[in-house]
């Protein structure tokens, strides 16, 4: 146990404040961009990382110019990143302005993947050490300890930036227009303001702030390829805890998070990760719109582009599905082990995607943390099999049970919110689960995971496992479909379509959504349990953000307007990923480009495009 002396308290507090400043730089840009464009910008962490890498390269080229070289590099990196922000806005997001908010979000995730591989290609996999800041290399004495001057400088940056932004928004015409556009961008255009230029400028500002944040990190820490996701998740936490749209809130939240981390490392190094997200969960449970946020009526996150009426399957579609099941069931007769393994995995992903679709498509609750339940199901089955030595049936039951219980708890927290807040809170819950799996080494094996999770005979063979998977996944998908058309499924959609109307018509909106959350979690658990057996192992990455995003991509790729969408999306995405990972060196970037192309070309998803084609054909047939 560390002894708490005044100088340790002070130094840790100062450390916390210094981290808070860089966090605030990223979070303020994220918040400004979200406010005006309604884009939840996952790529904001990439802007931060690019700022750091570009700053590193520039300082090397300008090293001979001394102090001017360093500060010029920092500023130059921020400006270049701002320019990259404009490019992203112009080339990608501008085309998605009329699409539901989830599509731009997905597009920004595509940008994340592209930037990751671009950075890898340009700067390589090694951590890069930046120079120290000329003029600020010294230390000051605090009691008996030495504290870097550069950290003091960073501490000052936060409040200075906050003041500068306040002046910008309150005292300039640009700020006035940004505030107006935050409320109603169409109306701003109708009053003669070029909103596209305004958007570009806002993106420049937001991206440049993130780039500055990254470049200012150079003297503090090594530049690496993991900076992007870790910082963007923390920035999300800051923005949501502070209250969307409130810069003061973002600063206060940044300080809160910075301090918690600084002291957490000191006293509870094992649970620091959990601690941050726990604080977020508590804040949102008590103040649903964050510390300084207001009612989030306008912060909706539309999941369904156009209310589309769900129809039961036509007879021909039923036959098609039956044929698919038969075909897969017959695979042991003609297919190889590798193909059967892939198909089993795709079936599992289809259940994972369909469970998220139940929550998101039917319930209107976009979850950014659905992988938590997938992962909990996986760990549940793996532990039951390896540690408890349960029979296989019990293990497969443990997966949805564990995930469902977790879903009951998480759902209780999450359904009190809606839109972006719900998405962020679900992300926080998932991060807690992820951090637990990572740090609770005694049970989960930590980073090493649990190995040897192989199903016993007759499911040990590829063909046996494929048949087991086929039966269970087909049953799961059919159950989700039946539920969608049941009174409960209709009540869930009613709660999404018009919550006030639903409540006044005798539908208990929150209870319905809560139940849906638990059901979706349990089905994700089914998928997770099977996945553990398919892979023979479980790792914390099963609960990671990237897995949750995979699920989002599958649902949106397939098309959210139909129940078949997530299944098709899972096969398309899963198949593509398996193909790319196996063959292409820069598979992430390729995947990113594919995501961008799909989101821009086919925003209604594969089923949406197919539906239109069929509609066209029927029309032309009718007119012929």
């Amino acid at each position, binding site marked *: 146990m560390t002894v708490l002396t005044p100088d340790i308290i002070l130094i840790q507090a100062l450390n916390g404040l210094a981290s808070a400043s860089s966090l605030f730089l990223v979070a303020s840009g994220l918040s400004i961009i979200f406010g005006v464009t309604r884009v939840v910008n996952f790529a904001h962490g990439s802007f931060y990382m690019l700022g750091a890498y570009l700053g590193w390269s520039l300082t090397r080229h300008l090293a001979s110019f001394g102090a001017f070289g360093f500060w010029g590099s920092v500023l130059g990196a921020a400006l270049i990143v701002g320019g990259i922000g404009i490019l992203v806005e112009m080339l990608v997001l501008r085309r998605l302005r009329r699409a539901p908010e989830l599509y731009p979000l997905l597009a920004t995730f595509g940008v994340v993947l592209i930037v990751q591989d671009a950075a890898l290609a340009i700067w390589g996999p090694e951590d890069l050490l930046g120079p120290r800041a000329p003029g600020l290399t010294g230390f000051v004495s605090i009691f008996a300890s030495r504290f870097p001057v550069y950290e003091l400088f960073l501490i000052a940056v936060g409040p200075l930036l906050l003041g500068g932004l306040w002046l910008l928004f309150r005292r300039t015409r640009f700020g006035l227009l940004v505030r107006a556009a935050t409320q109603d961008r169409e109306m701003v255009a109708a009053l003669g303001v070029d909103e596209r230029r305004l958007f570009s400028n806002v993106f420049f500002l937001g991206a440049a702030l993130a780039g500055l944040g990254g470049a200012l990190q150079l003297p503090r820490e090594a530049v690496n390829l993991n900076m992007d996701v870790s910082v963007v998740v923390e920035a999300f936490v800051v923005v949501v805890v502070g209250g969307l749209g409130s810069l003061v809130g973002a600063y206060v939240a940044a300080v809160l998070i910075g301090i918690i981390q600084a002291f957490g490392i000191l006293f509870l190094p094992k649970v620091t990760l959990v601690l941050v997200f726990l604080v977020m969960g508590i804040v949102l449970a008590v103040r649903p719109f964050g510390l300084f946020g207001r009612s989030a009526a306008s912060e909706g996150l539309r999941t*369904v582009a*156009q*209310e*589309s*009426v*769900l129809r*039961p399957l036509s007879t021909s579609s039923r036959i098609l599905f039956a044929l698919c099941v038969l075909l897969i069931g017959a695979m042991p007769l003609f297919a190889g082990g590798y193909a059967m393994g892939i198909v089993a995995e795709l079936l599992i992903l289809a259940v994972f995607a369909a469970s998220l679709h139940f929550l998101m498509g039917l319930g209107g609750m976009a979850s950014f943390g659905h992988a938590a339940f997938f992962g909990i199901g996986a760990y549940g089955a793996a532990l039951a099999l390896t540690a408890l030595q349960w029979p296989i049936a019990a293990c497969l039951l443990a997966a949805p049970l564990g995930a469902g219980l977790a879903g009951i708890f998480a759902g209780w927290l999450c359904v009190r919110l809606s839109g972006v807040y719900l998405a962020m809170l679900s992300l926080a819950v998932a991060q807690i689960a992820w951090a637990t799996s990572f740090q609770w080494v005694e049970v989960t094996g930590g980073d090493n995971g649990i190995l040897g999770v192989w199903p016993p005979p007759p499911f040990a063979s590829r063909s046996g496992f494929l048949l087991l998977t086929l039966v269970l996944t087909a049953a799961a998908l059919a159950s989700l479909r*039946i*539920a969608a*058309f*049941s*009174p*409960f*499924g*209709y*009540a869930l*959609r*009613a709660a*999404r*379509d*018009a919550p*006030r*109307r*639903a*409540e*006044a*018509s*005798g*539908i*208990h909106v929150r209870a*319905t959504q809560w*139940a849906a959350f638990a*059901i979706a979690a349990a089905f994700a658990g089914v998928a997770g349990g099977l996945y553990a057996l398919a892979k023979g192992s479980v790792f914390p990455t099963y609960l990671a953000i990237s897995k949750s995003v995979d699920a989002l991509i599958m649902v949106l790729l397939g098309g959210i307007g139909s129940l078949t969408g997530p299944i098709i999306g899972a096969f398309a995405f899963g198949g593509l990923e398996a193909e790319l990972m196996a063959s292409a060196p820069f598979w992430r970037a390729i995947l990113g480009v594919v995501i961008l192309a799909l989101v821009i070309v086919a925003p209604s998803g594969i089923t949406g495009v197919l539906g239109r084609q069929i509609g066209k054909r029927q029309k032309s047939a009718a007119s012929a």
Partner: protein
Amino acid sequence: MSTKVLEVEGLRKRFHGVEAVRGVDLTVCAGEAVALIGPNGAGKTTCFNMIGGQLRPDAGRVRIKGEDVTGMSPRLLWQRGVGRTFQITAAFASMTVRENVQLALHAKAKRLNHVFGRMTANFGDEADAVLDRVGMRAEAQRPCAFLAYGDLKRIELAIALAAAPKLLLMDEPTAGMAPGERVQLMALAASLAKREGIAVLFTEHDMDVVFAHADRIIVLDRGSILAEGQPDKIKADPAVRAVYLGAGLAPTASA
């Protein structure tokens, strides 16, 4: 004498130190249509939301058929026979017209928690009967997302009627409709109320609608009741003319 369905006593509500509603009393009897009118900001919507359970009053009582329901949620009020339509019309857009009403009937039958069995298999005929009453039977198969606004209003009414309400709260029921449609919709609501003994309380800005279909009018101004009575009496009341009705618009002189 008809029975009192809704009784409101001494209702008060304060927002940020400003008293929006200051002591409102009113009653509505079975089969009676009462209009709540008044200038913008007089407290009509606040009153309405307190009666409908969307807002909790600072003081005062709301009773339905004698039972104290003050502060109950909209869902609990629904269980006690309160139906409502909203100013911004909202039906369940992702469903067909018939499914909207079927769902309301399932709620009435307490069958919303059924996870198996197709919802559309039950209450189809009952739903059609309700749709008949609002003149929407022919549109039963159409998706609500593509209905005209006036038809959507009828669906909202049908959803409320499906639960066999004792009291119908209608917040600006004809907002956004063409003048002719307005009178038709309110005539429909008023006749249903008469025939089935439903108490109706509505807010409205179209005086043609109000004077044609309200049995009684309550005028709210700055949070209190300014006048109350039969349409003719209200029409002639100088105080009401001054704060709300105005002198009437003269046709343009241009030629």
